[in-house]
């Protein structure tokens, strides 16, 4: 720690802190426009000059670029400094258009604030307007070069934080301008980071322009409703209308960084396409009815079905997008009122073993991340089957921070050469063949064992089954592994060394692993890898710790599983067949659970419906018709049903098949909690009252229960969370009020009992994919940066940037078939066919095509089989 004096105040700060930050953290104001705590120093605006006395010498220094030293005396407000700062401001303002009345930044503008602070009214210079042209080449962002003071914050953010680097300083001297290469239209990820760091009104949100003044906006802290990262957002509203989403650097794990969906994808809240009233199907047409009628009708039909076929003839699909409270009430409603255990959520239906595997990984301490923010402290990052840039962009920003500040090494194992821009010194790509994920991880394990990269004696002591693992891998040489996986021996060796090196390693396990047929094997192999490294690390010599992060798709995919919307578990992963668990819930719910509440058959809901074992289905906030593989079968299954109830915000494909549709509230109108993929429970808050007659999901469920003669009564989400706190062991200690300040992580809150790890003994074989002669290509589907679910589909901003789905084709394949960028191609599988625009890319291996699956209006799932789908391709 360093002691220094700033403006006669004694201050102690850590070594390496800049004077600027030291002053700011101790309540001393120094003007400055280019400094930003998130970004590297630049020293470009020249405003933060201070007088520094050190070892008897007094000099003027720029406080943002001067680290503190012991005994330093700093004065920030001498007459000379004020004179200097004023004249710098005069220069900055000489070319500034001073169009504050029509500038959206007015009121939160750094330049304006400093002008006000320094009481600058009339400058000495003749002001000249530059009249540079506006950059208005995209639907979301606008750049007004006249207002720009060239502080370089946006340039650094774009390059360092986002890894995009779309903009930079162009030209020289007075002609300097922030621009793109060759003045091309802005082609970036549209994260809007430039908006968030710009100290003036140069970057503008076009969707917000002229809609409100800064001081009219009400800011409500909430959680982003899109992906599983769970960024903290601020919903800006005026007159009960959501106008923009901003972020607060000091709140949440995202440090004020958002992606395009989070920042711009909010306009679905006020979309015309929202369902405005409850709907009941009459003569094949969904027609508006009152809430009472709809609820009465649903209660009546459910009672009938229950009486005739029994409760288990009703299926329930919970929601990965609704809150924990909604999902808790949903499973309670299904189990207690409908008396069925045929409930599930789409993520569990897609990868049924994942919950158990995650639980195992938690028990052995492999998933002990308190927050995703920890990733920024990583020494090694290992993305396995995860396309972070597209699926979880903010994990990308955290990873880049680790790479930039912590010199972290990066390993990416994927089928495709996914895009991840970084400046990592060691950036290793393990581009492996299809179905060889598990052998690849085993190859890493083998290398670590063979080359003794870890202390094997220690491992042997702390675990079971190392000998079996060794003997199993005996014949599995690196050479063989290299042949199977298609990754060179050298790369495997390099990657193993990086994974095993001391320091924190974060493994992000992506969707390509979780939803793959060989997924469980790969995850088990990953756990073996974790065990090998974690148990070998001695706390004395290194803090070697490896953590597995399982990526999830939606904002509350984790929560839906936590809340027991799965057939195997009560909330909190309590075994449903266990009597004590059963008693626990019977006591809490004050009821006797039906005997049908047991682990059922191994079939998922779609299969059950196909087998006509289900007569009715209750779908809460999901669209399985589009979001579940093998779309045709799903549709077929839904056609078999007698009665379908859907709660959703939009009339999705599933809602269109329903007999009754209830309109529900969106994230802006809701309160409750979401759980992100690192098991952080975070709270969202009501920003606006419900739009167009919508209700909270749990409210609708309670209303139906009441009509069916069971009292499920809650005043608010808080009461539901309190019940969860009381009943579910892993959630004990969660308090609604405390969540305002701090998220709750059930993994770290409860140290689960750890047993000795026993290595999983797996045959390191690859999955062979049978080829079909007529269908030479293999279809891969995956995430998209711009879209996720029915929200993004109804957001005009997102659709305006990404309006058309596409199919990625390997360059060589494209050349052979004479396909060019933008050509329409016909994709045929055994199930179905569709036409899409082609995008020629080097990312993909040959004989494979890739279609993003989140352009919801394009039903990619109808092409898909349950496993690898073979397709053929032709120019349309």
């Amino acid at each position, binding site marked *: 720690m360093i002691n220094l004096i700033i403006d006669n105040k004694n201050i102690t700060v850590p070594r390496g802190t800049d004077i600027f930050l030291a002053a700011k953290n101790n309540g001393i104001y120094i003007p400055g426009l280019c400094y930003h705590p998130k970004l590297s120093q630049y020293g470009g605006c020249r405003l933060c000059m201070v007088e520094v006395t050190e070892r008897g010498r007094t000099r003027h220094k720029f406080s943002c670029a001067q680290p503190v030293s012991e005994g330093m005396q700093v004065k920030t407000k001498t007459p000379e400094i004020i004179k200097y700062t004023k004249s710098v401001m005069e220069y900055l303002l000489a070319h500034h258009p001073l169009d504050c009345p029509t500038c959206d930044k007015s009121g939160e503008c750094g330049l304006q604030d400093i002008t006000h602070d320094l009481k600058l009214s009339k400058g000495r210079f003749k002001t000249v307007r530059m009249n540079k042209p506006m950059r208005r080449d995209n639907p979301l962002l606008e750049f007004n070069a006249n207002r720009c003071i060239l502080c370089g914050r946006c340039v650094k953010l774009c390059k360092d934080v986002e890894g995009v680097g779309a903009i930079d300083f162009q030209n020289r001297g007075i002609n300097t301008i922030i621009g793109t290469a060759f003045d091309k239209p802005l082609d970036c990820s549209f994260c809007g980071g430039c908006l968030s760091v710009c100290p003036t009104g140069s970057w503008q949100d076009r969707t917000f322009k002229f809609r409100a003044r800064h001081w009219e906006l009400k800011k409500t802290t909430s959680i982003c409703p899109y992906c599983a990262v769970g960024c903290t957002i601020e919903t800006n509203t005026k007159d009960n209308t959501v106008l923009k989403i901003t972020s607060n650097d000091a709140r949440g794990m995202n440090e004020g960084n958002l992606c395009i969906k989070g920042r711009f994808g909010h306009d679905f809240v006020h979309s015309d396409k929202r369902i405005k009233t409850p709907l009941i199907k009459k003569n094949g047409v969904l027609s508006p009815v009152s809430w009472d009628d709809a609820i009465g009708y649903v209660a009546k039909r459910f009672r009938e079905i229950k009486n005739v076929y029994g409760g288990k003839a009703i299926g329930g699909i919970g929601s990965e997008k609704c809150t924990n409270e909604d999902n808790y009430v949903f499973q309670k409603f299904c189990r207690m009122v409908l008396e069925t255990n045929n409930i599930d959520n789409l993520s569990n239906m897609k990868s049924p073993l994942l919950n158990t595997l995650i639980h195992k990984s938690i028990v052995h301490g492999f998933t002990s991340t308190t927050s995703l923010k920890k990733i920024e402290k990583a020494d090694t990052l290992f993305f396995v089957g995860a396309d972070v840039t597209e699926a979880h962009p903010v994990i990308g920003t955290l990873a880049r921070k680790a790479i930039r500040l912590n010199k972290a090494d990066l390993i990416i194992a994927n089928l495709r050469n996914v895009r991840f821009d970084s*400046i990592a010194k060691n950036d290793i790509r393990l581009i492996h063949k299809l179905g060889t994920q598990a052998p690849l991880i085993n190859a890493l394990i083998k290398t670590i064992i063979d080359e003794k990269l870890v202390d094997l004696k220690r491992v042997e002591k702390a675990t079971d089954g190392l000998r079996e693992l060794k003997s199993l891998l005996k014949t599995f040489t690196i050479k063989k592994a290299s042949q199977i996986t298609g990754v060179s021996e050298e790369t495997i060796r390099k990657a193993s060394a990086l994974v095993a090196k001391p320091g924190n390693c974060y493994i992000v396990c992506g969707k390509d692993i979780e939803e793959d047929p060989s997924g469980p094997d790969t995850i088990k192999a990953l756990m073996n890898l974790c065990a090998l490294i974690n148990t070998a690390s001695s706390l004395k010599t290194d803090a070697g710790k490896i953590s597995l992060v399982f990526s999830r798709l939606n904002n509350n995919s984790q929560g839906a599983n936590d809340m027991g919307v799965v057939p195997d578990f009560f909330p909190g992963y309590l075994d449903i067949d266990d009597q004590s668990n059963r008693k626990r819930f019977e006591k809490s719910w004050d009821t006797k659970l039906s005997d049908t509440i047991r682990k059922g058959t191994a079939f998922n809901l779609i299969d059950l419906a196909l087998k006509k074992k289900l007569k009715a289905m209750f779908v809460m906030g999901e669209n399985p018709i589009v979001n579940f593989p093998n779309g045709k079968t799903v549709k077929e299954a839904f056609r078999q049903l007698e009665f379908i109830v859907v709660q959703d915000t939009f009339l999705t494909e599933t809602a269109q098949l329903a007999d009754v549709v209830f309109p529900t509230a969106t994230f802006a109108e809701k309160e409750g909690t979401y759980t992100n993929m690192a098991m952080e429970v975070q709270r969202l808050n009501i920003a606006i009252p419900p739009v167009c007659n919508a209700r909270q999901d749990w409210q609708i469920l309670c209303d139906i229960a009441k009509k069916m003669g069971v009292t499920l009564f809650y005043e608010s989400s808080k009461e539901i969370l309190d019940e969860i706190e009381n009943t579910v062991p892993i959630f004990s200690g969660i308090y609604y009020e405390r969540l305002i300040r701090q998220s709750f992580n059930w993994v770290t809150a409860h140290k689960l009992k750890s047993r000795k790890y026993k290595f999983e003994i797996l045959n390191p074989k690859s999955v062979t994919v049978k080829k079909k002669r007529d269908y030479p290509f293999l279809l891969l589907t995956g995430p998209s940066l711009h879209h996720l679910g029915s929200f993004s589909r109804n957001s005009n901003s997102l659709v305006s940037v990404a309006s058309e789905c596409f199919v990625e084709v390997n360059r060589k394949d494209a050349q052979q078939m004479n396909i060019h960028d933008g050509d329409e191609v016909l994709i045929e599988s055994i199930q179905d066919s569709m036409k899409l625009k082609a995008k020629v890319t080097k990312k993909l291996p040959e004989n494979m095509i890739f279609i993003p699956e989140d352009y919801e209006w394009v039903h990619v799932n109808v092409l898909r089989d349950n496993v690898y789908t073979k397709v053929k391709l032709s120019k349309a």
Partner: protein
Amino acid sequence: MNTLNRQKRDQNEEIDFSKAEEILDAYEGVHGALIPVLQKIQAAYGYLQEPVINLVAERMNMNASEIVGVATFYAQFHLQPRGVHIIKVCCGTACHVKGAPKIVEKFSAELDVPVGSTTKDKLFTLEEVACLGACSLAPVAMIDEDVHGKLAPDNVTQVIQKTK
């Protein structure tokens, strides 16, 4: 590079990347080598063309915007095709006093090209420079490596003809 080759390349839209690849190979893995790379590439291709810059960006793991930022900062780099002959008219103090603006005007009118641009036939690029250090010969202009001193608007035509 001889004139014929350059014209041939300009007519033919396909760019030969092999030279750029060769230069980039030599600097593989070297950090902070952007400026020498750009200099060599400019020497090989005459100017920095978009596809070549994109290649440099890809190979050096940089963003095109950053490279263009560097290229537009330094006067030595050119993003537009340059003429076979470069005319540098001195506009230093001595030349200015001796009527350099008129010389520039004459060159511009004679070649039908604004200052800082290249003629349509890609033969001449007209530039203003600060001082050529030959004030005793003011007003002075340099065409390629030849210095033409004591110019007058009347003999500009002659100088151009001579160079052609």
